[in-house]
């Protein structure tokens, strides 16, 4: 049933929409009810697994605005099945966890709304089969995650970090959109499944390099690759369920997902492979280096997440069969153990009041269930058998030993990355529970977390163990279809059995060395913490975040500077800028497009008209130099009525009448204010006056020249004849001007009418705020 592809995100969106209401009706237990939405979406998806494991896929299409390429195309294949199952499954658990974690929070309903809206966007993102639709969901995840990171909106720091994540990912998304547009131009379709069949066309296109760079800009910012990695650890400012869900299991994977999704179209070249591998390895190593010095458990986990994103990108870059297999297995394993660890940290934080690893010790006696979950997850993350993480790590080494030449560097990077990651895993998941207790040093007296907060971690941790022992549960069902989708090949049988991997060969040796090294790092953890503050303070000025801050403040500074220059608050300056810009731009275009001096149209130019024009010229001069309001008003009126006469004379009665009415009303309006105005005084010096005169003169010349040329310049066939001919038969009106206004171009007229209304509201606003803007001198007058 293809419709369920749209139903899945829709039910989660709906649940989010009603969450605040539900929370008010049901109270604290709303979490149980709301978790039904993601769980039922998961059930719906699993019910379709037949389509996926057969390699056939499920497609849904709904025409939306097809003229622009945006139609609601959705697809369930191996990759999207895997991702959507992870998002909905972990999502449901997070919703239940939230109920305990945010217990008693006054804005719990709002939190559910954001969380479920994010979840739905994420499901939509992984199911989308249309570039535009994917982009829309992509941006929705950015916006909802902004709201979630900044959920503690009273904290300035949280707001700043949320904004940072939004700006970095949003900027990348803009580049990505440009890449999508190029991609659609090359392939002439917006459907991702069709684009993936046209890989050769894309790769041979001259736009290929540009497409890769732009799309990767989006993927790298979203998946926090170097040099955009800094926003991810900062995003930990959000509540812990957010970190667990967005910043480990789902959103940050969106970038990796996108790269995997477009691999059949873009992958397979050296540019793609090396870019991904190099950025992935650098991200991995940098994250592990910085992670060593972290003392906040959540920060440690954030840096390991960064490292995992690096590994996944690296594996996609290597792109061999083993590498892709390793990538899929690693992705599943990571989602399970990292979500668990974040939730465990959330429970520890909730029950002890701190996340400082140097304080947390010996909690296993008081929080046994949480300790079990944390330990299991840490072992899986360490890559110890028989956990699922072990299979992932083995596959990475298997892919790695196939490399040769300089590419061995990637294997070395992966080795060191895994080694440190194991140390960090033990630090975060095991360290807090062992050792001599020091409960007195903790801000709160610890006790076991409530049911809602331990059930989720334990379920996730145990499933990581279960599919490690029995990998065939997921290999045919999830892993193989996903690998086939990424590689763009037919389904192949995968051998993931644990005993297959435990053979005395190089990968196993590397694995053993990783474990030893990881323990070494774990045991010597205090050494790194001792120097942490000094080291971090030293490298910070050279980091990417410092660069971001410099660029950010430079942009704000520039904005302030140019606002102060342009928006001076003086009417004189505004007029000068507007008229000046118009003159320069139009003048430039005119001079460029003019070839030779155009002929003067002398038809119907007689003595009376010449006299009228001369009179208007005198009036204009008079209005400029006079210092008496009545004289100026009279002169302006003369010009206006003169123009009306010209209109009438040259056969534009509508314009003439309108001009007359406007002139009359202007005079009347002036009469009201003229008595209240102060006498005209000279504020400008001779230089300013000269400058203004020059500008005014050239503006007048340009306009005159434009009008003169307009008769000859014809860019396109004129439509006035067509309009005149169709006016009566089609619109039943003989007055063409009116027919254009109210029928042919009625929408334009409506827009203008709206502008008039907006101007009136502006006047109303000016009237009511008059006192605020009263000049200072006046306010100080006695």
């Amino acid at each position, binding site marked *: 049933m293809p419709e369920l592809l749209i139903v899945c995100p829709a039910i989660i969106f709906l649940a989010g929409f009603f969450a605040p209401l539900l929370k008010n009706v049901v109270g604290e237990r709303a979490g149980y009810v709301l978790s039904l939405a993601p769980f039922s979406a998961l059930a719906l998806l699993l019910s379709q697994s037949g389509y996926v494991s057969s390699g056939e896929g499920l497609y849904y299409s709904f025409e939306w605005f097809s003229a622009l390429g945006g139609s609601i195309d959705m697809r369930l294949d191996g990759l999207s099945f895997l991702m959507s199952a992870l998002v909905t499954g972990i999502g449901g658990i997070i919703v239940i966890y939230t109920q305990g974690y945010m217990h008693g929070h006054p804005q719990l309903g709002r939190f559910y709304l954001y969380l479920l809206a994010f979840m739905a966007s994420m499901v939509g993102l992984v199911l989308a089969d249309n570039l535009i639709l994917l982009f829309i969901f992509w941006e929705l995840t950015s916006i909802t995650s902004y709201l979630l990171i900044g959920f503690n909106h009273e904290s300035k720091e949280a707001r700043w970090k949320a904004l940072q994540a939004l700006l970095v990912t949003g900027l990348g998304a803009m580049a990505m959109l440009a890449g999508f547009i190029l991609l659609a131009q090359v392939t002439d379709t917006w459907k991702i499944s069709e684009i993936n069949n046209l890989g050769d066309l894309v790769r041979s296109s001259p736009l290929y390099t540009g497409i890769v760079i732009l799309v990767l800009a989006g993927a790298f910012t979203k998946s926090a690759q170097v040099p955009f990695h800094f926003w991810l650890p900062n995003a930990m400012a959000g509540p812990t369920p957010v970190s667990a869900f967005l910043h480990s299991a789902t959103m940050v994977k969106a970038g990796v997902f996108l790269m995997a999704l477009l691999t059949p179209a873009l992958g397979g070249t050296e540019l793609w492979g090396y870019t991904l591998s190099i950025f992935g390895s650098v991200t991995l190593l940098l994250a592990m280096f910085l992670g060593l010095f972290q003392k906040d458990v959540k920060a440690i986990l954030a840096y390991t997440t960064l490292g995992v994103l690096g590994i996944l990108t690296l594996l996609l870059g290597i792109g061999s069969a083993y590498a892709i297999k390793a990538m899929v297995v690693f992705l599943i394993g990571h989602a399970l153990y990292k979500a668990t660890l974040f939730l465990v940290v959330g429970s520890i934080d909730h029950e002890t009041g701190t996340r400082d690893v140097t304080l947390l010790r010996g909690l296993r006696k008081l929080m046994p269930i949480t300790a079990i979950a944390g330990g299991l997850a840490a072992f899986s993350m360490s890559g110890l058998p028989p956990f699922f993480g072990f299979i992932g790590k083995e596959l990475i080494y298997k892919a790695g030993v196939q490399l040769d030449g300089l590419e061995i560097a990637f294997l070395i990077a992966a080795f060191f990355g895994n080694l440190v990651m194991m140390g960090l895993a033990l630090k975060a998941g095991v360290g807090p529970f062992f050792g001599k207790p020091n409960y007195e040093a903790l801000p709160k007296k610890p006790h076991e977390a409530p049911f809602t907060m331990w059930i989720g971690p334990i379920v996730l941790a145990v499933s990581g163990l279960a599919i490690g022992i029995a990998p065939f549960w997921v290999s045919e069902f999830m892993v193989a279809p996903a690998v086939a989708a990424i590689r763009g090949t037919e389904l192949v049988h995968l051998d993931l059995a644990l005993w297959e991997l435990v053979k005395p060969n190089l990968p196993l040796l590397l694995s053993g060395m990783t474990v030893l090294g990881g323990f070494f790092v774990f045991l010597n953890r205090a050494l790194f913490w001792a120097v942490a503050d000094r080291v971090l303070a030293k490298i910070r000025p050279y980091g990417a975040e410092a660069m971001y801050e410099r660029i950010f403040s430079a942009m704000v500074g520039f904005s302030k500077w140019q606002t102060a220059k342009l928006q001076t608050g003086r009417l004189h300056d505004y007029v000068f800028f507007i008229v000046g810009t118009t003159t320069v731009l139009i003048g430039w275009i005119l001079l460029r497009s003019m070839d030779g001096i155009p002929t003067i149209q002398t038809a119907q130019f007689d003595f009376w008209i010449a006299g009228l024009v001369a009179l208007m010229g005198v009036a204009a001069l008079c209005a400029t130099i006079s210092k008496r309001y009545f004289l100026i008003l009279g002169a302006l009126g003369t010009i206006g009525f003169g123009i009306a006469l010209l209109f009438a004379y040259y056969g534009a009665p509508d314009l003439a009448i309108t001009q007359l009415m406007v002139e*009359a009303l202007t005079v*009347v309006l002036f009469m009201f204010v003229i008595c209240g105005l102060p006498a005209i005084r000279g504020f400008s010096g001779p230089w300013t006056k000269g400058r203004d005169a020059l500008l005014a003169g050239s503006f007048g010349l340009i306009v005159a020249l434009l009008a003169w040329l307009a008769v000859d310049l014809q860019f396109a066939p004129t439509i006035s004849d067509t309009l005149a001919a169709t006016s009566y038969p089609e619109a039943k009106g003989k007055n063409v001007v009116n*027919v254009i*206004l109210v029928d042919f171009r009625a929408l334009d007229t409506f827009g203008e009418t709206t502008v008039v209304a907006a101007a009136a509201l502006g006047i109303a606003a000016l009237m009511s705020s008059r006192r605020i803007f009263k000049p200072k001198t006046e306010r100080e007058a006695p």
Partner: protein
Amino acid sequence: MKWFVLSQTGRTLFPWLLILSLIVLYRGHNLPGGGFIGGLLGATAFILVGLGDGMAAARQRLRMDPVTVLGIGLGVAVLSGLPGLFGEEKSYFVDQWLPDFTLPLLGEIHIGTPLIFDVGVYIVVMGFVLHTVFSLDYLAQTDSRDKLEEDEKMKGGAD
């Protein structure tokens, strides 16, 4: 101080100017005229009364806030587009005509959505001009410097 002649002129011309403005509005589709000019003319009727008897009198004749008038005009203009949605395949924003009929004195009458749209424009323009004029008049009445200072003083005394 009222100027008798102006006051009487305003009062006498008021209905005729309004009727004239409506005629200009109606004939716009075939002859010079239309909603914009009609609206300006209609506003003139009120302004003339205002010049003679004071703007308060003009405001009273309008019976409602000019901004409300403006809103009604926008609404009429929007609604005139609706029949087009249900009409035949015509793609124009507004193009729905009732069958022509003849009235005594006025001759053949055409009524259609373009006319309704033009009525909307008429009302918006009239509302805009009157709003501007009333506002300026209010300024002129209250903005003399001593008046402001007086207000300030009264405010200061109340504090």
